[in-house]
């Protein structure tokens, strides 16, 4: 009695082994650009095009990088900043998620607090850094708070937007099968919002790095931001670049970790834009 018409069954079996058009070697292009940048960086100071005091050649930065990471004091600074970033990120994401869910679930709360939300977003968060140092001191807590304040917002907004973008017919379906609001939230709204929430989490990661570093710039005795500020003051620009490389690696590493989780968790995502 099965009437699985071959017309639409056939469409389901996608041609997996489609003849692939030869793709241009994009990876090679990327590497070439990278090599070009390094080459210019190495040659420009050597040829006297830029002052080596301001822009040390690449090889000097590479040596400085090795020199920095092998210093016995380096781990203390690295883990101080890492700790601030991770704590700020984790707390920021938790707060952003919680507030986003609350505002989405209770429309009244959203209407009442929305002016504050917008006002807060319009304020450049960096301006709070001196205040937090004044209130919480030169230790890690002022940097963690700075990272939280700067990173929770994208998570909040994306959670709110994601939960509010649940298609009307999915909600209707849940009502037609007598689902409670809580069931609809857990089984439909939250998974639906997850891809959008994850985009906010990625932004939060980058922001929490900024928060920790800005906090350290304003007042700290430990951390990579403190080191960067110190070396800059001492005009050891090669070391400044070395710290920047470390910070960039932290940011990139975290980003790829979140990206990996995103791919694993949100396997059903249709759009390729991330």
């Amino acid at each position, binding site marked *: 009695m099965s009437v699985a018409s071959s017309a*639409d069954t056939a469409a389901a079996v996608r041609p997996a082994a489609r003849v692939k058009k030869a793709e241009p070697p994009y990876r090679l292009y990327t590497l070439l650009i990278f090599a070009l940048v390094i080459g210019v960086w190495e040659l420009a100071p050597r040829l006297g095009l830029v002052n080596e005091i301001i822009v040390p050649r690449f090889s000097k930065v590479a040596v400085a990088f090795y020199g920095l990471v092998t210093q016995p004091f380096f781990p203390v600074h690295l883990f101080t900043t890492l700790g601030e970033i991770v704590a700020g990120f984790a707390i920021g994401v938790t707060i952003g998620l919680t507030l986003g869910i609350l505002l989405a679930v209770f429309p009244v709360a959203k209407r009442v607090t929305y002016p504050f939300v917008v006002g807060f977003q319009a304020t450049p968060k960096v301006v709070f850094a001196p205040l937090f140092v004044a209130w919480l001191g030169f230790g890690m807590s002022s940097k963690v708070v700075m990272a939280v304040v700067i990173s929770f917002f994208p998570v909040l907004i994306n959670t709110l937007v994601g939960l509010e973008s649940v298609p009307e017919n*999915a909600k*209707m379906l849940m009502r037609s099968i007598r689902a409670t609001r809580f069931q609809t939230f857990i089984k439909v709204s939250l998974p639906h919002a997850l891809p959008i929430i994850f985009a906010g989490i990625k932004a939060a990661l980058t922001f929490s790095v900024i928060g920790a570093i800005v906090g350290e710039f304003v007042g700290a005795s430990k951390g990579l931001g403190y080191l960067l500020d110190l070396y800059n003051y001492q005009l050891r620009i090669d070391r400044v670049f070395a710290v920047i490389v470390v910070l960039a690696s932290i940011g990139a590493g975290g980003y790829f970790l979140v990206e990996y989780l995103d791919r694993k968790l949100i396997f059903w995502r249709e759009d390729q834009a991330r």
Partner: protein
Amino acid sequence: MSSAVLSKVDAPAGASRSEGAAAIVQVRGLSKIFHLDERDVVALEGVDVTIREREFVSFVGRSGCGKSTLLNIIAGLLDASTGTVEIAGQPVIEPSKHVGFMFQAPVLLPWRTVESNVLLPAEVMGLDVAAVREKARSVLATVGLGDFLTAYPKQLSGGMQQRVALARVLTYEPKLLLMDEPFGALDEFTREAMNLELLRLAETAGITVIFVTHNISEAVFMSDRVVVMTPRPGKVAGIVDIPLPRPREIAVMQQPAFTGLSFDIRNILGREQ
């Protein structure tokens, strides 16, 4: 109303499979007014319809004639402004577990497999999922998806996705199936196959079907009766009995009676315009 139409209204259904059956849905004096920003829109006005058990009834009409609104009210998804809807003698105040609802879109959850989508209502309603799983698999096999239990919606064609949606309602053995242009988004051939399949399944399971469409031939082909609705305000313009023999085959569309009935419906729609 012309006498040609009047003579058909509420006439005993000749070849209907529901002949002499009891009423399952009773809509009385139903009106629905939507309060928009500046003005009130009368979506439905004074709708009276009775649908008998095991009957297949279609609602046809232009966009905005209130047919979907009526279906949503019968489903308990929307409140009526005035009037009542009773299903099996009980006033409708919320969706019932004996009523299945199918939308124009399949509305599958993309992170769930085919089988898991069909089991969603069981989870939500707190049924024994293991027991329902057996039933779900047999229904999925019936609609031709026995080999796709672990597939995800995006791997399926539109027609197959709608089959999953069909399996999702049929698994729970509804007494009444409400369908809002369920195959409207599919291509002609797939829709025809799905319609035949639906007729067979509804007949076998003894399900009453209320079917909303804007396709006149589809309505005639499927139904025991066609309720013709006209817009502004949405109301019933006439009810046409379809005394064509069952089981219906595609060939029935070539019969003069089929053409005549389609024309009657077109006339009612046109006259009200």
